[in-house]
């Protein structure tokens, strides 16, 4: 296959089709999760990344299985992009023993170390130092690995962000700090919570190059991530990427979104839907047709339905599981 879409990573048409398919996985997985929550089929809480599919899929696609990621409470997309199986993820949400975390973690803690996924995290900003530690391992072990630390805009006001960026910079660690600026930390508009126009400016305080990109533009995501990864691999240290995006849904399942207008939401859904934008890009490049796109969507919908079937068929943990794995024996 050819290379119809210009990009710095040298991705082929097939690569972009693969990414597009991953974006559908993320969209449809989270839509299904929302439905299941509303139907009372799964409990707890969940944070959906609908509207943010390009950041996860575009950046995650550039990673090898041996590369690491750390993720956030809004992390289903990152896990899917890092090739954690949707079957196991769904089983985790159903609290099944064959879930990614044997049913012990749930939505906010999905991890899959075999795939290089160090886990999503319920504590805002906690992933920064952990990612730095993983990158430190890579450097000390002389391994050609890169860590992507996914985080949200709100987390850049946590002390851990500043401590970790500084540490990563002085030790020139192979880590990419990837901020998905979806513009709201729960209900708080990031514009009211920082007094700078771009979060990427914060990199300068630590001697880290910062870039702000359109996070719903798949090529921009691929290009920026590729450059950051290459830099990290060459031992030239971390990069701070701020990818501007928007979460179409509320913070969590109980959010009525009274802090933003329906007009604003409609504007983003109409003009900045990463799936629509990517589809358009691929069709214009001549590597996708509307029919093929619909086929991909239908295929991925089926895959998500299969994940639900897989999850429902999974066994529940035995009562003894309560006491297992508190400590490594």
């Amino acid at each position, binding site marked *: 296959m050819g290379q119809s879409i210009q990009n710095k990573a040298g991705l082929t048409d097939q690569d972009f089709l693969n990414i597009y398919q991953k974006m559908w996985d993320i969209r449809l997985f989270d839509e299904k999760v929302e439905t299941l929550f509303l139907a009372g089929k799964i409990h707890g809480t969940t944070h959906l990344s609908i509207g943010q599919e390009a950041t996860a899929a575009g950046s995650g696609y550039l990673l090898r299985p041996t590369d690491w990621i750390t993720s956030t409470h809004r992390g289903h997309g990152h896990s899917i992009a890092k090739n954690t199986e949707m079957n196991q993820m769904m089983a985790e949400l159903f609290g099944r023993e064959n879930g990614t975390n044997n049913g012990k973690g749930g939505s906010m803690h999905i991890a899959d170390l075999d795939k290089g996924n160090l*886990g999503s995290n319920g504590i805002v900003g906690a992933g920064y*130092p952990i990612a730095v530690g993983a990158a*430190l391992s890579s450097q000390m072990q002389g391994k050609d690995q890169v860590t992507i630390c996914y985080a949200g805009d709100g987390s850049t006001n946590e002390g851990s962000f500043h*401590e970790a960026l500084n540490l990563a910079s002085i*030790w020139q660690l192979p880590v990419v700090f990837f901020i998905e600026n979806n513009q709201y930390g729960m209900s708080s508009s990031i514009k009211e919570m920082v007094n700078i126009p771009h979060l990427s400016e914060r990199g300068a305080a630590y001697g880290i190059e910062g870039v702000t990109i359109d996070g719903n533009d798949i090529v921009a995501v691929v290009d920026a991530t590729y450059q950051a990864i290459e830099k990290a691999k060459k031992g030239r240290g971390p990069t701070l990427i701020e990818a501007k995006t928007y979460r179409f849904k509320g913070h969590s399942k109980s959010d009525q979104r009274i802090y933003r207008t329906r007009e604003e939401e409609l504007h983003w859904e109409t003009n900045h839907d990463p799936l629509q934008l990517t589809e358009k890009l691929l069709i214009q490049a001549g590597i996708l047709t509307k029919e093929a796109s619909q086929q991909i969507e239908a295929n991925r919908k089926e895959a998500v339905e299969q994940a639900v079937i897989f999850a429902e068929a999974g066994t529940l943990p035995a009562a003894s599981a309560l006491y297992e794995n508190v400590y490594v024996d």
Partner: protein
Amino acid sequence: MRERTYLEAVNEALDEALAEDESVFLLGEDIGVYGGGFGATKGLIEKYGNKRVRATPISESAIAGAAVGAAMTGMRPIFELQFSDFITIALDQIVNQAAKIHYMYGGKASVPLVMRTAGGSGTGAAAQHSQSLENWTAHIPGLKVVQPSTPYDAKGLLHTAIEDQNPVMFYEHKLCYKMTGDVPAGKYTIPFGVADIKQTGTDVTIVATGIMVHKALKVAEQAQEAGISVEVIDPRTLVPLDIETIITSVKKTGRLLVVHEAVKRSGFGGEVASLVAESDGFYALKAPIKRLGGEAVPMPYQPQLEQNAIPQVSNIYEAVLSLMKQ
């Protein structure tokens, strides 16, 4: 007899672990040429270089968190918190991350790290540099908590901590650093969850931790002169706790005194007392269980007030006498 200080014992364990295992490394504030806040890492950067003895910025959250991330990915980090009070600014990584990851991930990841830190009062360092907060970590499932009182125990327990696959909180006491004792050359380990009977006796059981072990031993000497036989038990590890040894002792003596420097209120002494009260050791009790611990005040600066804030030899002795009256 190979006499070494407690501080030297810690240093030797670190040295031997660095020499033995490539995945072991140290990180913390001033642990390089300065040798660490109290000198525990002296000479190590010269021997192992700045890649394995990593002096860090003053960033406790990043230090602890980097240790978590490194531990999850194949390394064995040992980080130093200069004063145990500073755990307050590292606590998310210790409590919400390190302690929970193995369980929360269904056993598919482990976090083999050691936090070394200096606790306790007696140095005039006042309220923010003198606390004994070990019980905070003992409350958290997933952490192991070690509190050595002697040079021998410090070295052996630190080796065990470094080999352990779990996050281990290693509390050193500042006033123990200069104490001397027999420390064998080379590596040896002391299993966790095995209390050490520092003094055998038949009339009163004192369970003491950290610096209080030494005070309890003085009391045992004094009591001996008064014809009272005191047994002193040092649990050495709060988690896992060797409650069996304590209960066995109580069955023998019928009297229990628990002493720690940490504030008595909601302290670990309450846990020990409860476990004994809940056991069949209860029936052996000739007197109600007694606890001594720090006063429920922030640690004051002035030396006399500072002394008064924690149990002294005289307080422990009085408690023993009062137990004997019943």
